[in-house]
């Protein structure tokens, strides 16, 4: 991709506001079901109100009428078309907007079938580009056939291998061979739910719920005296935990039902979902980095998940779910997948180098500091009983040592491997040519121990975990990498 000038290639999509008396819009409309899809959101609550027995029927009828009318006008004013090498979307109820998204800026295309789309038998197509906080292009209701055609057109990539076949006269529409890279069986899904990060979230929700409805839960368990009875407390805790696990399993089943990852050599396709079906297409050349994540619960069983970094993915839970190339698999399976996607053999055999032992000392000192602080607070608040906080020393030291053992860095040809994190150990695989910039960071504490951290800054989504980093490298090694990693080879 070549840029015409430093200022013109960015932003990745161009939005212009059109005069309301401008030229007649041209292009295709969405599927008429769009009106239904839009109205679904507003009508849903109305139906609930009706069922709940608030029968202010005229008001509700008026509200429903307005929402449908708005939908009709919106549908009438929505046009999209393919114009050369870009897709043009014109929309807007009162103020009309035109958005132009050049094909070569598209990072991924996702097709979504939520319940409201399935009712009408249509598909929503989402187009992601670099930058921007939200999805850049949304076609909210298309006939599945049109959606599929458009998806192929948008990601019209001509790899060197298939160029010949195209010149040989084969039609573009020819379905390339799809190779299945990963699939998730039911038992794996259940295990994923049992060991996933959702357990914590669900437990928190349950905990908050219990705070609010504590009394009522007490009513449910009439034999247990909640006030001060330790057995009651443990019974509740067990209930919360069991509920959290069930909730987590249910959520995982819904989200990753029938998870299939395929590749045709040009793009990855991820299909998943029970009620809400999604099909995500990620061109292989848009993959910025891969992560192999192993949390505390999964590490003893040598289980791992694989996530992908694609530029411009908007943040939030949905994007996080879309990032999975393998929600759960064995470690070996995960590494094999990384090798296949990045097209780089021998990654499973890469031995990571530990960081200097000074990095371990740093972590031990930090743990000691924390325990000392906790003990001091305990002494002030609880008197001599506060000395019990010293018992924290054992787990704190164990955690510090584990955190140090999780750190590692390695390299295999032009592939950089960085590992860090103790609760969720993440091993990141970053192709060197994906580096956008490098940042060497050093705190005063690191400076004293001649350590420094190197951030491998890549074009990624706005995830919570930031760029892959070599944490606590030897300072001279880190400055050396800073000079050589981005040098044109």
């Amino acid at each position: 991709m070549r840029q015409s000038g430093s200022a013109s290639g960015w932003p990745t999509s161009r939005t212009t506001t059109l005069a309301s008396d401008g030229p007649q819009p041209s292009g295709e409309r969405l599927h008429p079901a769009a009106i239904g899809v839009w109205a679904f959101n507003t009508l849903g609550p109305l139906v609930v109100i009706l069922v709940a027995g608030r029968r202010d029927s005229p008001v509700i009828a008026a509200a429903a009428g307005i929402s449908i009318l708005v939908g009709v006008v919106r549908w009438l004013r929505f046009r999209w078309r393919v114009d050369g090498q870009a897709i043009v979307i014109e929309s807007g109820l009162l103020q009309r907007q035109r958005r132009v998204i050049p094909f070569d800026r598209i990072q991924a295309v996702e097709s979504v079938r939520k319940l409201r789309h399935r009712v009408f038998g249509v598909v929503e197509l989402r187009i992601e580009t670099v930058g921007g906080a939200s999805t850049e292009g949304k076609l909210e209701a298309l006939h599945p056939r049109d959606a599929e055609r458009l998806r192929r057109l948008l990601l019209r990539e001509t790899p060197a291998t298939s160029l010949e076949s195209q010149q040989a006269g084969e039609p573009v529409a020819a379905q390339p061979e799809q190779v299945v890279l990963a699939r998730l069986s039911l038992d794996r899904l259940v295990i994923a739910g049992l060991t996933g990060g959702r357990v914590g979230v669900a437990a928190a929700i349950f905990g908050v719920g219990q705070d609010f409805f504590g009394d009522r839960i007490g009513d449910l368990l009439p034999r247990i005296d909640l006030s001060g009875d330790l057995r009651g407390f443990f019974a509740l805790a067990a209930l919360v935990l069991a509920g959290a696990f069930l909730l987590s399993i249910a959520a995982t089943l819904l989200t990753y039902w029938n998870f299939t990852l395929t590749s045709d050599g040009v793009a990855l396709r991820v299909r998943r979902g029970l009620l809400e079906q999604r099909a995500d297409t990620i061109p292989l050349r848009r993959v910025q980095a891969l992560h192999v994540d192993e949390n505390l619960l999964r590490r003893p069983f040598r289980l791992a998940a694989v996530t992908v970094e694609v530029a411009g993915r908007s943040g939030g839970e949905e994007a996080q779910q879309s990032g999975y190339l393998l929600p759960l698999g064995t470690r070996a399976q995960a590494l094999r997948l990384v090798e296949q996607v990045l097209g780089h053999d021998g990654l499973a055999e890469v031995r990571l180098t530990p960081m200097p032992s000074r990095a371990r000392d740093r972590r031990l000192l930090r743990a000691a500091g924390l325990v000392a602080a906790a003990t001091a607070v305990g002494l002030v608040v609880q008197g001599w009983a506060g000395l019990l906080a010293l018992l924290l020393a054992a787990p704190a030291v164990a955690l510090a040592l584990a955190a140090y053992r999780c750190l590692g860095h390695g390299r295999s040809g032009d592939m950089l491997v960085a590992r860090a994190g103790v609760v969720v150990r993440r091993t990141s695989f970053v192709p060197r040519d994906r580096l956008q910039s490098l940042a060497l960071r050093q705190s005063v504490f690191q400076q004293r121990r001649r350590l420094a951290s190197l951030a491998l800054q890549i074009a990624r989504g706005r995830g919570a975990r930031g760029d892959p980093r070599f944490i606590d490298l030897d300072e001279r090694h880190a400055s050396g990498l800073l000079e050589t990693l981005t040098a044109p080879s």
Partner: protein
Amino acid sequence: MPDRTYATRMEESAAAPLLPLDPGVRRLWWTTAALTALPIIVAVLLVDVFIGVPLPTGVLPVVVTIAAVAVAWGLPVLRFKRWRYALRADDLWLRRGVLWTTTSVIPYARLQFVDTKQGPLDRLFGLAQLVVYTAAVGTSGHLPGLRADAAERLRERLADIEDDDVGV
């Protein structure tokens, strides 16, 4: 510029001078620090006079004022002393930060676009900021205190650097 060897590139990079920011940026930083410190001092004074703290009246405001003035005056000085940037053969090099030092290397080939910015305070002191973006999340490089004309020249220069393949 593919004819240069790796060794010459490294040599040129090493030879690129490490430039400080414009000294005027300290005045800008002092101003913003004063604007942050003043409300804190006033708030502490009000609390001390009207609500009271378990200390003799006047002790807390004096201590807070001394600390705030020391930080507000000292931090900009240290920040300015630490700040260096260099236009090297193939990349922009930046070093900044007092307690946490960050050294960034941003290859010209990765630059997506370059901006100059001038806020009201910048204008007051005749300064401008230069912001460079790559495809990485957020701002990749930020030079806060340059003379306005120097920033403009730098922007032109960076924009003129021949584009390499800047695919994402």
